[in-house]
């Protein structure tokens, strides 16, 4: 039986002639938020957290290979990124959202794309620049055009290129920088006598390149911290794909384009895929939500564009490696791609067909 007596309530209402105040008072108790009233459990922090988890194997191995200095580089870039995010959000009188982990992820990504032996202030500066210039000047999370971690890296790269590449080349621990080895491969091709054509040249190249397969796959001693092992990068990618966090089209089309173009241009395709920052960039940098297109075909265009630019920079520029600038360049094209590559909504094709038919009919009648 109902606890309340509907009769007495009814009578009161009838006497008053209007709906009872009680009804209005209840509005203070009941939430009237708009539908849907249930949401799935995903959160921004959850997504960022899983990307960080996907990066953990490669981070751990990178630090193991690079030693204490590598750990300092990663820690400093995370510190720089998180502190900058907090300070700027405080200055802008916004809620501080460092616990959504996006700044942590930016710092980690930056750290992993730096060589293991840098003065401690350099990754710190990189982290600051990544968040301040890469993200917050555009309005914070979701509003930036360029990948913040790559913005940080690019600034360090052009400001301290000696540290970022050459010093590293002479470091006793890491005798050859991965992208330099690409150059050396190129040198082999040019040095190969033109008389020895076709097979001979190809064989020689394959022999030279395949020497690097093993180290590149499992323990590359001359890359950046995050480039020490292609296998662990792919493990990270597998985690991201399993959790449905990235679109497979980007890494596949990016690496695929580079492989095909490099093969056409005469480089060992597998070497082209494994060397330098390509795998890391394709799996973790180009897949950044904010800075790549929203639609499936947009993503394909973006990734193929990244692949073309990377190959062009590798073969025809003074830069040792093209991944960073390729992704940054294509980031710039993302708004344009999103403007022109868009899904056709349900029923719009049918509507256009119907309109065309009606017009044709009208034209027929007029004739």
């Amino acid at each position: 039986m109902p606890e309340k007596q509907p009769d007495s309530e009814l009578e009161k209402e009838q006497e008053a002639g209007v709906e009872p105040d009680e009804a209005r008072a209840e509005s203070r108790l009941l939430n009237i938020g708009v539908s849907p009233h249930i949401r799935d459990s995903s959160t921004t922090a959850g997504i960022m957290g899983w990307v960080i988890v996907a990066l953990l194997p490669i981070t751990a191995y990178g630090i193991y290979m690079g030693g204490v200095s590598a750990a300092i580089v990663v820690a400093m870039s995370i510190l720089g990124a998180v502190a900058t995010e907090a300070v700027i959000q405080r200055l802008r009188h916004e809620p501080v959202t460092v616990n959504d982990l996006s700044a942590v992820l930016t710092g980690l990504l930056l750290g992993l794309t730096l060589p293991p032996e840098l003065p401690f202030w350099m990754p710190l500066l990189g982290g600051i620049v990544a968040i301040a210039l890469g993200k917050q000047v555009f309005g914070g999370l979701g509003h930036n055009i360029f990948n913040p971690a790559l913005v940080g890296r690019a600034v360090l790269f052009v400001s301290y290129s000696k540290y970022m590449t050459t010093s590293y080349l002479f470091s006793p621990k890491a005798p050859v920088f991965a992208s330099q080895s690409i150059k050396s491969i190129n040198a082999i091709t040019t040095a190969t006598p033109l008389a020895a054509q076709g097979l001979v040249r190809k064989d020689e190249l394959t022999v030279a390149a395949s020497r690097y397969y093993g180290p590149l796959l499992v323990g590359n001693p001359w890359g950046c911290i995050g480039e020490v092992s292609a296998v662990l990068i792919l493990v990270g990618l597998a985690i991201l794909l399993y959790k449905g966090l990235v679109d497979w089209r980007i890494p596949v089309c990016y690496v695929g384009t580079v492989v095909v173009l490099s093969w056409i241009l005469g480089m060992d395709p597998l070497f082209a895929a494994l060397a330098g920052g390509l795998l890391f960039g394709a799996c973790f940098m180009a897949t950044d939500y904010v800075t790549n297109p929203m639609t499936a075909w947009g993503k394909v265009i973006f990734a193929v564009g990244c692949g073309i630019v990377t190959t062009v920079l590798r073969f025809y520029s003074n830069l040792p490696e093209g991944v960073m600038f390729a992704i940054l360049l294509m980031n710039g094209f993302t708004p344009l791609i999103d403007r022109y590559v868009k899904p056709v909504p349900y029923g719009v094709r049918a509507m256009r067909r119907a309109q065309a038919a009606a017009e044709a009919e009208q034209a027929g009648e007029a004739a």
Partner: protein
Amino acid sequence: MGWADNLKRSLLVKGGVHPPASKLAAGVKISDGPKPKRVLIPLSQHVGAACEPLVEKGDRVLLGQKIGDSDSYISAPVHSSVSGEVTSIQRFPHPSGRDVLTVEISSDGEDAPAPGLGPAPDPLSMEPGEIRRRVREGGIVGLGGAVFPTHVKLSPPSDRPIEAVIVNGAECEPFLTGDYRLMLERGQDIIHGARIIRRAVGAERIIIAIEQTGPKAIAAMREAVPDDGIEVFILPGIYPQGAEKTLVKTVLGREVPSGGLPMDVGAIVDNVGTCAAISELFLTGMPLTRRIVTVAGDGVAGRANLEVRIGTVVREVIDFCGGLSGDPGKVILGGPMMGLAQYTMDVPVTKATGGILVFKKGSVFCEEPGHFSCIRCGRCVRRCPMNLRPYLLGSYSDAGMWDHLEDLYINDCMECGSCAYICPTKNPLVQLIKVGKEGFNRRKRKMEALAEKASEEAEEKENAGKTA
């Protein structure tokens, strides 16, 4: 059903989400709802024009008596669900959130039926026009939630031949089980109603579409189906399969044109509840005065599928099911994906009320963030069953940039809530899109009025020039 059929179906289905089904009341038989001492019958319970009251304060009304009607084509009359005395006609809280003109009737408990209500002779050989007239007089509207007047659906223009009647038994909203129970218990009524509809529109096929998540309902309907052009179609268990346009695409493989109706592609879609109501109307003559309401949620003591008289106050239905348990956070009429949260429990059950869900504070999503914080993950674009771009609709609506919303086909959004459900930043996308629709349509009307005025002025000028 082989894997090839499954593959074909899954290729036709675009987007959608998988909210937990939570069909708590699936095992509870349909039973009679409370016998209210007072009913509040709103004069607007459907899409289209509101009715004018046909009774006055103090009048005695009978069960099934028409108490409100309208001259508009897109409208349906309302009927008394009790016999008794009209105590007032005034504005009362309505599930839509507005106050709506409502006939308040105090019941005498006798349920004396109105005269002249009786079974129709042989509806399956009746003239289509007569079927439509009776359906309209019976106040039948779509009971799936959209409450579109059914007689309008049953009147396709002559250049739109109807090939198939799709009976919608998808019930993809979580928690709601009324249609499911109806299919288990009253399969014959549903099929009888569907045949009447088929007769009215001159279709050949009847396709009963049921989600694969309800195997018992599929079995029950298969058993009830005699072999005369009636088929059972199994839908994938994806929300929102029960939405009219999505359903037409999955079942027939055709897209309803943007801005059009299923009749444009030779289909008419009616909910199983609507079919059963039509069947009852023709078998007993009783107009739509009751509907099946699922009561569930952790904020209410019981769970039930009740046949509730329209106009019963929600609070009374909740009390009938054992009352509240704990502090209520949200009271939702309809399902959790598209239902309306109520500010009071003193609203009446209307023809649109498929469910009364009560959730405790803390067990339901209540907070909305203060700002639009998209991280461009693209899930809303992938999951939108209409293939729209909800993140753009949301951000343009948020910024008040109404003129950008046309190219995004904002009016094609059916507010199914898949985008907001899946959004990791918990953006209130449906809220923003509702605001955007309002702003966009207001602006469009204004621009059209301005254009008309301008062309009139130009004409006047021209005429003035001629006379001079």
